[in-house]
């Protein structure tokens, strides 16, 4: 497919790897923010192409992984209500809560449906006026324009049996939380290309300056990621800390204005809890007051309060780049994609699942 295949050229990938080897003089630790990039790195073996001085850490950019347990519990509770049709993206179904996951709610008789787009959930509400349709609105900035549109259209069309369970998170506050941690090892970031397609990258400029970290907005294909690493290493070697845009075929500095306008119309910035990390101030989106009627947490009386997370899982440390999946004692034994203990094993973009799928046999590289 055009704009995909050409960025997977193995020979060009080798040339980028060669170029990185040529410029690197010391050890550098770079974090790719987005789970989609983590998945591609493992799938195409990009980490193995890199010289040993360059370590890639896997960041918190998997919305499935960072959705807090209590929201999963709320989703399960909603899905079990007889009047509710609970709609979700497919990858949320097997995320474990404290009382099972959405798939077990479905097995127990809950009407749980996988949708491709939030607009499909809205259509279901229109077709089923006697039922309550709830959509699990998870995601980063990439998904916010779609979710905002579904809510906006519901209001515009006066649809009263549609609501959303919101778990929206924002990338820049998470980067700052990582950089502020005393355990931080990250020296440069590959920022998430699709998040920046929507939001642009002006928000990252003060972060690059304040923390003296290079941030390269990067795409998702192997050549994108390799070029992103090259640009990041080059900045590190030259002592620069700037925001650069590798993914200019999709990302403009100011982002997508119409999308940002609708996000601002429907959502406001709120504090959010991240699974495994904890609450980060100003790190999420919640519905604005004129749209509260579409908030599932306000519409339905929910019992679920805040809950403790299982202690064995170290996914919080993995999401912050402090540990690698194979450093978890449960990895591949008590915790597998069939029986996940934590969300980073559930989602195909979670670091644990990516390592399990592509690197189970491989021994960790020294250094």
């Amino acid at each position, binding site marked *: 497919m055009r704009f995909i295949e050409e960025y997977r050229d193995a020979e060009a990938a080798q040339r980028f790897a060669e170029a990185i080897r040529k410029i690197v003089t010391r050890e550098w630790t770079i974090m790719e923010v987005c789970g989609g990039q983590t998945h591609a790195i493992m799938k195409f073996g990009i980490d193995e192409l890199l010289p040993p001085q360059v370590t890639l850490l896997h960041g918190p950019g998997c919305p499935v992984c960072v959705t807090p347990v209590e929201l999963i519990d709320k989703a399960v509770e909603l899905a079990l209500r007889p009047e509710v049709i609970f709609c979700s993206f497919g990858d949320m179904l097997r995320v474990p809560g404290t009382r099972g996951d959405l798939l077990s709610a479905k097995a127990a008789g809950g009407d749980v449906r996988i949708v491709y787009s939030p607009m499909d959930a809205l259509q279901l509400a229109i077709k089923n006026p006697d039922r309550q349709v709830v959509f699990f609105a998870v995601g980063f900035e990439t998904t916010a324009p*779609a979710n905002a*549109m579904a809510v906006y259209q519901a209001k515009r069309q006066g649809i009263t049996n549609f609501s959303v369970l919101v778990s929206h998170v924002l990338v820049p506050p998470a980067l700052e939380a990582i950089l502020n941690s005393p355990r931080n090892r990250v020296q440069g970031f590959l920022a998430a290309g*699709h998040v920046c397609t929507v939001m642009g990258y002006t928000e990252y400029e003060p972060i690059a300056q304040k923390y003296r970290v290079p941030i390269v907005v990067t795409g998702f294909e192997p*050549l994108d990621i390799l070029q992103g690493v090259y640009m990041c290493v080059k900045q590190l070697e030259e002592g620069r800390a700037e925001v650069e845009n590798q993914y200019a*075929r*999709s990302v403009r500095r100011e982002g997508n204005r119409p999308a940002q306008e609708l996000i601002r119309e429907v959502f406001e910035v709120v504090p959010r809890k991240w699974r495994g990390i904890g609450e980060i101030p100003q790190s999420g989106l919640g519905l604005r007051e004129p749209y509260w009627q579409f908030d599932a947490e306000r519409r339905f009386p929910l019992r679920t309060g805040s809950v403790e997370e299982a202690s064995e899982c170290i996914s919080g440390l993995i999401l912050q780049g402090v540990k690698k999946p194979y450093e978890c004692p449960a990895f591949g034994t008590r915790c597998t994609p069939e029986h996940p203990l934590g969300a980073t094993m559930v*989602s195909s973009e979670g670091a644990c699942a990516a390592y399990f799928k592509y690197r189970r046999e491989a021994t960790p590289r020294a250094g």
Partner: protein
Amino acid sequence: MCLAIPGQILSIEGDDPLTRTGKVSFGGIVKEVNLAYVPEAKVGDYVIVHVGFAISVVDEQEAQQVFEYLRQMDELGELQEQPA
């Protein structure tokens, strides 16, 4: 989750900018895509699509940038490898 893939717009329907949709081909698989966020998009353009919404129009010139960068690096690399 933030997976978004490029596809080519085959046709566009609707006048309301907020509900404008298009048929978009992803290597032959055609899907209906909401075009509200890419008011500038025309038939024939490639758009990056995420959960049923186009979030950008692919800039065909910028798309060559990776290969251009590689070519320039190669030139630089050759210079570096020449004996001093």
